[in-house]
């Protein structure tokens, strides 16, 4: 699974959580909260969708790793690789 695949999976989740948001120009290094008007409940939704769709757990102390799309890819990359390998 390459970074672009992970990026797309994260954007799929954000499209569900924030269906009104325009995701066509999300900048990788800018905080998602600022670009897409996301709040703490939205991030809990993202955590829940990662759990439901991909069986990935994000502990509370790591929530800050989901701040930007780039940091999501960096943080979740190994987790996606791990769940893919376990299948």
């Amino acid at each position, binding site marked *: 699974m390459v970074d672009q695949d992970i990026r797309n999976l994260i954007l799929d989740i954000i499209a569900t*959580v*924030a*269906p*009104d*948001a325009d995701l066509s120009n999300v900048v990788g290094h800018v905080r998602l909260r600022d670009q897409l008007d996301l709040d703490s*409940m*939205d991030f*809990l*939704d993202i955590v*829940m969708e990662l*759990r*439901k769709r991909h069986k990935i757990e994000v502990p509370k102390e790591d929530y800050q790793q989901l701040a930007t799309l780039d940091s999501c890819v960096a943080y979740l990359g190994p987790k996606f690789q791990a769940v893919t390998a376990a299948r």
Partner: protein
Amino acid sequence: MTAAERVVITGVGLTSPNGNTLEEFRRNLLDGVSGVTAIETRFMGRVLAGVCNFDEQKYQGKKERRRGTRAGSISIYCAHEALGRSGIDLDRLNRARVGTFIGITEHGTVETENEIDVIRQYDYDTRYWSHHHNPRTVANNPAGEVTVNLGLRGPHYTIGAACAAGNAGLIQGVQMLRLGEVDVALGGGVSEAIHSFGIFASFAAENALARHDDPTQACRPFDQARNGIVVSEGGCLFVLERLKDAQRRGAPILAEVVGYAMNSDATDPVLPDPGRVAECMSLALERAGIEPQDVDVVSTHATATELGDQQEITALRQVFSDSRRTYINNTKSFIGHAMGAAGALELAGNLGSFDDGQVHGTINVTELDPRCAIRNLVLNEPKPVEQVNTILNNSFGMLGINSAVVVKRYAK
């Protein structure tokens, strides 16, 4: 009563199974158009229900809707429509002086059933239970969603009043205006009941869930062949103002709320008590300062259960036995039982009679139950009358809660 104490209706927003505006709703009541259809529900399969088809996105973003509830969405739609019709410009109003009072029969069962269904797919692991569950299921949810959406900062809460809730929400609005707590009140009721299988299952367990091959004929109050309730969703909110405020801004005045009453049977959880129902209607008339013969239309609560229909007619005979000009009708026969919304919708559906001079009928009566026979019960077709000036709207609920609201044509 002074103009500062008199309260009038200056706007109506509604969604019912047969109409999403007051005009569409009224037209369909006069044309005999039912809004009952068949739906699939969890565990039970096909059931009959009243389903609303308003545009959820008209006043709400998709994310807001996703986080909230159907009852909240119905409330937001009705609030926007009602305020729009009233001509109130919220930007010129102190939003801290606007109150939101919404009657509900129940709230939270839909959301709880949904979450249980989610965790069932994950072997009942509660880590999959949504963090949205609490804000969705707090009892004030429908009213609170309205205030968040519209930025209304006055008091808001729901009123749990079983199926008398639509009247109760309106009454609370009137009272808060008279207390001087608010300058504008949104009052009425809503229901999302059809999204809960439990409500259908419970009525079925009581042998009180309507069945019919043709859904549009399923809800038949007073008919010999009636076999129970059609559960519906819907909502109706009234904009209420003190008469002097409405006059000052040249508001459209649809009716004046001249009387109301609520009381309790204090006898049985489900069986109504005609004596207390009669007392409730009489108290509402007394407060309105009118006699039974001054009432042109009684909008009945009757739900198409055998005993409930008969008990209400018994109460009506007690109060209106000498009232030859009072006509009696029923709106549930068109839309089913919209639970928390029922009282408000049924009042709204009759308001048009002030202008069109017709009393809409009670459809689906093929053979009148003789125990429900009463003078001037309007069956199947609208009844043209000389003029409608006064309407009494009944709404009752489980645990013996009764309500009656009296409205009059506004005369300058």
